[in-house]
């Protein structure tokens, strides 16, 4: 369970990233955060694994305030939170297997990892994760030989190998074309249901948010301006979240092609 209690974040340059955020995310939920760019979606998501640190309030993950964590505590927290990025963030010169195994680093001793002596189970887990996102045949290819959609699937496999309780996805489809976007979202949804991993995804495409989310949280200027089940959401809601009328480029489209 993740609980934001009066969380605020002011960046050193004075920008308010989060303003008095109160949100509780229950285990197994598939939450989509929507909002325009600069609305604080990334800041929200990155607070949970402390890539950014809120400056006020309390942030509880599994009933422990994580804002005070440092060093070993922080790494331990991060091993149970997987993250997926807009630009995949794979090591381009390393092969797919090595990239996927990197998800296991937090569970592996330093010496073992330096000499690449992964446990048999870990390698098996990496292979199984790749199979789950249907890209196992690329296991020995270098990451830069893959297309964007394939790289994003490898990064999902990396997160799966980490065996997390939470998955954070920061604009995972923003660099992909519509059919590939739907494919990636479908995998995330499937993993959420099958493994009961709480998943929080940042999106700015409203049609995708409505299609995949159980619950939608709308943000504007660092504040949560909407929070409710996806079934209650209409275009009107989005117009309120965005503070303007919905435009063509707020939609990803292509749901039928995938």
């Amino acid at each position, binding site marked *: 369970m993740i609980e934001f209690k009066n969380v605020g974040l002011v960046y050193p340059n004075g920008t308010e990233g989060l303003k008095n955020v109160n949100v509780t995310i229950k285990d197994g939920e598939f939450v989509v955060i929507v909002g325009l760019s600069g609305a604080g979606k990334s800041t929200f998501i990155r607070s949970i*694994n402390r*890539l950014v640190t809120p400056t006020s309030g309390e942030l509880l993950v599994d009933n422990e305030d994580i804002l005070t964590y440092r060093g070993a505590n922080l*790494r*331990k*927290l*991060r*091993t*149970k*939170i*997987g*993250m997926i*990025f807009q*630009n995949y*963030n*794979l*090591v*381009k*010169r*390393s092969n797919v297997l*090595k990239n996927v195994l*990197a*998800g296991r*680093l*937090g569970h*592996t001793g*330093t010496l073992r*990892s*330096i000499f690449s002596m992964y446990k048999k189970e870990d390698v098996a887990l990496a292979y199984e994760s790749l199979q789950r996102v249907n890209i196992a045949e690329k296991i020995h290819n270098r990451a830069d030989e893959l297309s964007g959609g394939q790289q994003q699937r490898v*990064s999902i496999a*990396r*997160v799966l190998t*980490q065996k997390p309780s939470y998955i954070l996805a920061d604009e995972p489809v923003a660099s992909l074309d519509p059919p590939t976007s739907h494919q990636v979202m479908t995998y995330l949804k499937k993993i959420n249901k099958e493994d009961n991993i709480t998943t929080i995804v940042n999106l700015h495409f409203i049609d995708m948010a409505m299609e995949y989310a159980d619950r939608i949280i709308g943000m504007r200027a660092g504040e949560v301006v909407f929070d409710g089940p996806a079934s209650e959401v209409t275009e009107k809601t989005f117009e309120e979240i965005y503070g303007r009328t919905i435009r063509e480029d707020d939609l990803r489209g292509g749901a039928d092609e995938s």
Partner: protein
Amino acid sequence: MATYNLPPKPVKSVWKKLKAGLIILAVIALYVWTFRGIEIDWGRAMERVIRNFGIVIPKLFSPDWSAVGEVSMKILETIFIAFAGSFMAAILAIPLGFLAAQNMSGNRFIAGIGKWILSGVRAFPDLILAILFVVAVGPNAFAGVLAIAIGSTGMLGKLYSEVIESIDMNVIEAMEASGANKIQILFYGYMPQIIPEFLSYAIYRFEIDIRASSILGIVGAGGIGTMIIFAANNRNWNEMGLILLAIIIVVTVIDFLSARIRRKIV
């Protein structure tokens, strides 16, 4: 064909034109004045140049093949000096490169110190370093190795730090986000991104060091340079021809190999 009306060029003011003209005039005047100050009999100078050319050039092109044994030993020594020197530098430059890279030290001040050390080292020409080390360890190949090592460390450290600064930090962030510790991130995030470039630069520097070490012998730091200076002093142009031939062959072969290897690595 469509014609485009480009926006008009800004008109240069008369004063600007005048200024440019004045500067050109001043430079020409400086040259004229300088050359008038040289007291030289141009006729005699040209005559000597032509005469010496007639003697030296044909000899350079008829190398003294009897010296092949000695020359090849010395050229081998030159290659070894360059190799040992660049190898030492390739390793010494790693910590300095990390120190000088802003994204690693995370501190402008520390990175500044690293950059300052590297500039300081680079400021010494190879020959000056060689002279220093000949004084310190005696006139032998070891002095040459040290001179090459120190000289190359300056450049490699600088290039390494630039490689480190240009890596994809998002990858590092992804690893931090998965709970990897600093040493694991070094091995899984940094190393795959930097090692190929490091190697490539080290090999490129070896290429330069071959050329540098071939003249170090002039100050007594070992290698083929010693033979160059003796041949020149003794006006032994046939032997000089062979030495130059050997240097040209070695440098060309190593340039070629280095280019091929470096293409493979990156």
